[in-house]
Structures are given as C-alpha cells and as structure tokens.
C-alpha cells in the first residue's frame, strides 16, 4: 500500500530528472581553459571534467530547470522557439549560476532537443564572486556549449 502510494506520488511529482550534461553550459571554463591543459596535466583535466558534470531536474514551473554540478548550481528557463515532435525542438534559454547559492554569473543561449539529446550554445558572463570574497566588479565573458543526455521530460507535453 505504502509502495503504491509512494509510486503514485513520484509519478505526479513536479520535480523530475531531465538529463545529465557531459558538457555543462554553466561551466564554460572547462572547455576553454581545462581541455587545453590536458597534455600538461591530464589528471587535472579529468578532475575538472568530473567537477562540471551536471544533473538537471524539471521544476513545477514549465520550462524551469534546476541544475547542479560540483562546480556550479543554478536555474535555467527554456522557452520554445521552434516546436518539434513530442515537445522537442529549438528553445531560447536564460539562466543564473551560483556557487553554493552565491550568484556569480548568468547565461543566455539556444538549446536544441532531439530524442535523448540536448545541445546548447550560448554565452556566459561570470564574476569570480564567492562566499569568501563576494565581488561582482570583475567579469569574464565566454561562449558556452552544453551537451546532455536524458529523457527530456521537461520539454515533452504534459
């Protein structure tokens, strides 16, 4: 009975797993700064790869996603630009990034969802702000790329 109740609650829960990103659009520094040092220090690049792996969940507001990796945690909103079959297609997106809830940056871009794949491109403005040194005076702007795999439940019609 309890199992039945639990599973029915999960089925109706607004928070659902959406995807895992192997390239995290919230951590463009991995692609820009860590990948080029692979030859010099492969262990470091491997460590930073793991740090940027991202898990995304849908939230009760349609189009809103929670993202979490060791490097960055944040929220992203996706709005439909060109709808495709089963809720897939092209989306515009905007998001904010935090380090343990300390906001440090924002990004905008385009996301393309097809099958179990989500690709994104965009641009991120990030400050070095942390709890140890809250500071939004210095900014760094980098192009972003995201590549994720998952059921894309957030994009599917509900």
């Amino acid at each position, binding site marked *: 009975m309890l199992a039945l109740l639990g599973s029915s609650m999960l089925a109706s829960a607004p928070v659902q797993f959406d995807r895992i990103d192997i390239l995290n659009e919230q951590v463009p520094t991995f692609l820009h700064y860590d990948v080029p040092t692979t030859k010099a220090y492969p262990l470091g690049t491997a460590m930073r790869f793991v740090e940027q792996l991202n898990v995304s969940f849908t939230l009760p507001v349609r189009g809103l996603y929670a993202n979490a990796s060791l490097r960055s945690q944040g929220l992203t909103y996706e709005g439909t630009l060109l709808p495709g079959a089963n809720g897939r297609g092209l989306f515009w997106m905007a998001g904010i990034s935090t380090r343990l809830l300390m906001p440090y940056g924002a990004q905008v871009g385009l996301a393309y969802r097809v099958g179990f794949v989500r690709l994104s491109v965009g641009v991120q403005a990030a400050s070095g702000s942390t709890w140890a040194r809250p500071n939004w005076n210095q900014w760094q702007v*980098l192009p972003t790329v995201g590549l994720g795999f998952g059921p894309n439940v957030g994009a599917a019609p509900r």
Partner: protein
Amino acid sequence: MDRSLIQRWRSALALLLVPVALGGCGFIPAEDAPTLVSHRAAAGRFPENSRSAIRAALDAGDAALEVDVVLTRDQVPVLSHDAWLDAELCTRADGSALPADEKIRIMDLTYLELINGYRCGGIEDPETPGAEVVEDTHVTLAELLIELIGHPEVTLQLDIKQDPEDTLDANTYAAVILGHWNLANLPNPMYVTAIFPETLRAFEGRQPEITTLRIWPNFPPGSNSTLVGLGNEFTRMFGFQELVQLIEEAEADGIAIAYQVADRGAMEVVRQAGYQTALWTANSEAALEVFCTWPIDYLITDYPERAPCR
C-alpha cells in the same frame, strides 16, 4: 536514415561548432610570455641551491633564479629548501649518513657548525634525475648576491623558509634578509615568496616597496601532495577560498600557485585585480609548452632549457 533527421543533426552539429570555434580561449597565448624562473637555481642541472647550480644558471643566461633562504642560529642566511638538513641530500662532513629519524634544524646550528659539519649535493636527488652530483657546503645569501654582480638583468626570487616551528621568527628573517639585500645595493629585480602570511607581512611591514607573493597551497613535509591538492581544489571550487582573498589576507602583491591546483581563468582574474602571478613547478616539456602561454608573470621550473618561452 531519414533525410530530415540527417539534416537536423547537421544543423545541431553546426550549432555546436560555432562556440567551439569562437571559444578555445585557453589555446590563445597571453599577451606577454612569463619570465622563466630557475627553481632552486635550476635543480635539473646541478644540486638544488648550490654554488654549481647558481654559476651554471648565470652562465646559461637564465632570466631569473629562485633560491630558498633559512637563517642559522647566529642569523646567517643560507640557501636550503628545508629548515633542517635533508637526510636524502646531505651527509656529515666525513661522508657518514644523517640519521633519518632525527631532524637536524639549521636554526640550532651556527654558520660555522653548519659548514664544518655537513655537506649537501653529493647524493643524487631522485626528484631531478640526470642532474650533476656535486658535494659542497651551504651557500650564503651574501655569496649569491656577490655572484649576481655583473648580471643586473637577472631577477631574484627569495623563497623564505620561515615557519613557526623550525625557524627563527618572521621579524628576524625580514630584518636580516632585507639587511643583506639593501647592503648589496644591486639593480636586479627581486621579489620575496613565503607560505605563511606572517612572514610576508614582516617583509611588507619593514619595506613596503618589496614585492611579495604568497605561496599556495602549503604541502607540509611528508603530506600526500595529491590529497592536499584535492582538498585545496575543493575548498576553492566551493568558494571557501579564493586567490585574491588569499593575497589580500597576507597583504601580499601576488600569489605563486602549484600548477596542480591552478586554472587559467583564475589567473586572469588575479591579474585583472592588479596582482602578480607565478606558477610552480612545471618540469615536463608538455607542461612548459602549455604554461608558457598562460597569463602569468613567473613560470618556475627545474629545467628552464625545456621551455619554449625561454
């Protein structure tokens, strides 16, 4: 396969490649190449901090020398990486081995006791295979400054090995070492590095115009460097530590970072904030090739001849 699906995948791939092409910022060399610093006077050639290493580095035209400084009991600054005699690198003057389980601190010896009783450099250093083995006494800071006469272009990095447990206090270090430096009145650029903020504050307090860089992170002797590196990586990743904050806490002018925990983006932030940056200790050709393109002021290596930015 469905033609429209292929078309869609092509579009997606093109979309993906645009920022990759625009990006790749890490492959673009920084505007200025770093000054190459010969670590422990280029320990890849001769024993670390030795006369032979210093002379070889100056003869080879190295741009900068890093040496480690420790004070004896009678306050003579000598070059030594550790505040004690390293049993793996040094022996007694008669050639007998030093006890591995006993720490012979330099602060407990007078200068004469040190040079009459002990020799270093006569044992091959496993960290720098291929380096010449030359047994010698400790070099004093005064001797090094004399060697620098005639080489006004060579930058000097004095890494101050002062610590709360095994050396004299920070103020004594600052007074004695700056006294030697000021007396020599050399035109060479010079900067001071140290692990502990108190050491740097003592130098800054005595002579504010001296450039000071904080060494980070601290790898205590005998510690597992991978674990120490990982711990520091995580504290910085979660924002509990931050490079500019570490510099400002020590009232320093910059930071010298182990390459294992460094990242290029953070180095750019430090430089944008107006502070200096150094990276230690990159020795492989692959590592030197990469770090030569980073936005850093100093690149520290045991093998300066391997670096393309030499």
